[in-house]
């Protein structure tokens, strides 16, 4: 109802046509100031009452007065007085509502949106609605809360509110021996556990100055890339699910299951495998694992073709993805965004190429980039990355060197089991490592790697004891989420969900 307070009482007599209407509406006009809509309604009711009162009261004339319908209590009062009472009640109720609405408007006017919305809310003509999404909308991919400001269906501003999944892992890590921290940090970004372990182990290896054997580096690469495929598959399935493409979820999760089986085969766990150790990997791959991996590598490109056949020619998907959530590379870089999001905007920055770690320079692979940085590019880049990952794994598997899988440094890695029976030295090392852990020389290290969502860096500070004095994970989701407001602003609310999905935030990593 578009009525303002100064409309009241102007031309109040103009609407009351006949003398009976004057009588019907007169009492109300003294009670409360009437608004235009109310006057119109009042006149309509007056019409009805004046039409019903003289003659027919049996034809069930629609009476909006609620409880006092003529058929309900015809004997109690004469119809004329009944309707007059009803009208009286109605006008009182309406005056009350009017008052409440007026108070609400006054309250609303005192809210200072400018602190929340910046310049957006100051446009006078915009009728903005601030709604809360979350903290657990299923399409938000985690316990994320979005304070969304809408103008109609268009996003004018969105503020992510985080912290619902904060578990204090960084604090917990300070209370554990170095090698016991690995399972804790693995649980930060729960779809990229190998990456978390890699970043942490890399930082500690930097501090220790340990050389990781070549075979261990290759095994790490194989598992990291499998993990990247797995993470992207989860992303693909859930994102397309948000867009309404349900079948792809089952196909993507079928292949993900194959990868998880491989993880289980090599380390005993499907997730949070604790396979990477400081100085190498915990054990060599079991017999038959390579054959199983080869079978996966052979079928994966075909599977990716199938996904693309399902999605890349799907008109609905294309319309939902193309030119949605566009953010140019310069702005993305200001927000510190890295990984597939930045590459989708055309910046070929990949830490595996730029500053190779763990023998990535041995492998031949391409860095897929997009063109304009819309959601379609983000999708295309991730699918292309899976293909490149398959290539890397194939090369690493073919060229897997012989040798130890963990450093020979007994101060860092546990001695082989059989040595414990024959060597006193080995027994002492084993005992020291298991009880106290390793002592790491004083210093600080920041070890960045290319995670599935961008630069995953681990900062470790050692004060010379057997527990880290500080472990910090620079999680890509946490940093990338800051750019979400810029991506979603000006989009439809339905596209905001798609854009959020294409951002691929992992709340376990964001909140840590």
């Amino acid at each position, binding site marked *: 109802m578009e009525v303002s307070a100064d409309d009241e009482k102007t031309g109040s007599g103009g609407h009351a046509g006949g003398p009976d209407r004057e009588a019907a509406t007169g009492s109300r006009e003294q009670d409360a100031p009437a608004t235009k809509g109310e006057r119109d309604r009042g006149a309509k009711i007056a019409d009805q009452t004046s039409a019903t009162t003289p003659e027919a009261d049996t034809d069930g004339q629609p009476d909006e007065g609620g409880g006092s319908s003529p058929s309900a209590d015809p004997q109690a009062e004469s119809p004329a007085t009944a309707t007059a009472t009803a009208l009286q009640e109605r006008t009182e109720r309406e005056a009350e509502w009017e008052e409440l609405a007026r108070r609400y408007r006054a309250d609303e006017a005192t809210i200072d949106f400018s602190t929340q919305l910046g310049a957006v809310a100051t446009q006078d003509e915009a009728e903005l609605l601030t709604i809360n999404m979350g903290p657990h909308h299923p399409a938000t991919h985690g316990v994320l809360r979005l304070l969304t400001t809408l103008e109609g269906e268009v996003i004018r501003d969105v503020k992510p509110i*985080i*912290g619902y999944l*904060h578990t*204090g892992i*960084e*604090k*917990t890590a*300070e*209370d554990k021996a170095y090698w016991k921290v690995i399972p804790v940090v693995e649980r930060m970004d729960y779809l990229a556990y190998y990456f978390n372990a890699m970043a942490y182990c890399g930082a500690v290896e*930097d501090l220790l*100055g340990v050389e990781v054997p070549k075979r261990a580096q290759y095994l790490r690469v194989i598992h990291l890339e499998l993990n990247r495929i797995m993470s992207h598959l989860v992303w693909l399935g859930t994102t397309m699910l948000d867009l309404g493409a349900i079948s792809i979820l089952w196909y993507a999760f079928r292949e993900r299951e194959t990868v998880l089986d491989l993880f289980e085969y090599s380390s005993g766990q499907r997730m949070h495998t604790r396979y990477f150790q400081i100085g190498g990997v915990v054990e060599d791959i079991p017999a038959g694992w390579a054959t199983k991996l080869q079978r996966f590598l052979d079928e994966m490109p075909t599977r990716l073709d199938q996904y693309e056949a399902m999605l890349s020619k799907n008109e609905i998907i294309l319309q939902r993805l193309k030119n949605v959530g566009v953010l140019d590379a310069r702005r993305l*870089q*200001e*927000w*510190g965004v*890295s990984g597939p999001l930045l590459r989708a905007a055309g910046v070929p*920055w990949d830490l595996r190429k*730029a*500053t190779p770690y763990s023998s990535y320079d041995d492998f031949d692979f391409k860095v897929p980039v997009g063109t304009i940085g819309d959601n379609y590019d983000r999708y295309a880049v991730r699918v292309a990355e899976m293909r490149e990952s398959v290539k890397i794994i194939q090369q690493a598997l073919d060229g897997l060197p012989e040798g130890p899988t963990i450093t020979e440094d007994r101060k860092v890695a546990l001695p082989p089991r059989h040595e414990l029976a024959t060597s006193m030295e080995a027994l002492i090392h084993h005992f020291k490592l298991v009880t106290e852990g390793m002592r790491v020389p004083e*210093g*600080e*290290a*920041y070890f*960045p790697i290319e995670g599935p969502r961008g*630069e995953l*860096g681990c*900062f470790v*500070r050692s004060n010379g004891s057997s527990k880290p*004095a*500080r472990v*910090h994970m*620079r999680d890509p989701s*946490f*940093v990338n*989420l*800051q750019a979400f407001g810029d991506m979603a602003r000006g989009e439809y609310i339905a596209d905001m969900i798609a854009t959020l999905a294409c951002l691929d935030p992992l709340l376990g990593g964001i*909140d*840590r």
Partner: protein
Amino acid sequence: MPDLAAFERLADIVAAGDDGAVVATDHADRRSEIQVRPSALVETLDRLRSQGFEHLMSLHGVDYYPEEPRFGVLYELLSFKDQDRLTVKVRVPLSDPIVPSVTPGWPTASFQEREVFDMFGVVFAGHPDMRRILLPDDYIGHPQRRDFPVGGEPVLFTGNEQRNPGWWK
């Protein structure tokens, strides 16, 4: 990581015109670090940006308890052009934990400065929205400080609210 000569050149650029700006430098195997005075921080980052370190990849806090000045804030800079990394560090004492905010120049610092404030209680002067980010707004204390105990925080369940009236005191 820049080699030693390049690193010294960068340190000279940072120190130019302001003798006290650089507090310490550290050039190790895989890490080079310039420690500056808090008041010279924004200027330092701007100068390094003009040297190609255009990306602030990470910003995190460290508690050096019991050393003084106790808190450290680290800025991990990255140069896409040279594929180099450089760390800038500031140290502030517990009595005056104020660091100038770099969010106006580097928007990516926004969430990360809030996290450092949340976890260590280091205040970033000039940050547009200096609030807690991961912990609840009414949380008391800064848990990543080294003297903040692990555990010992009462957890409210329906059961122990009844069994233990006044648990919040």
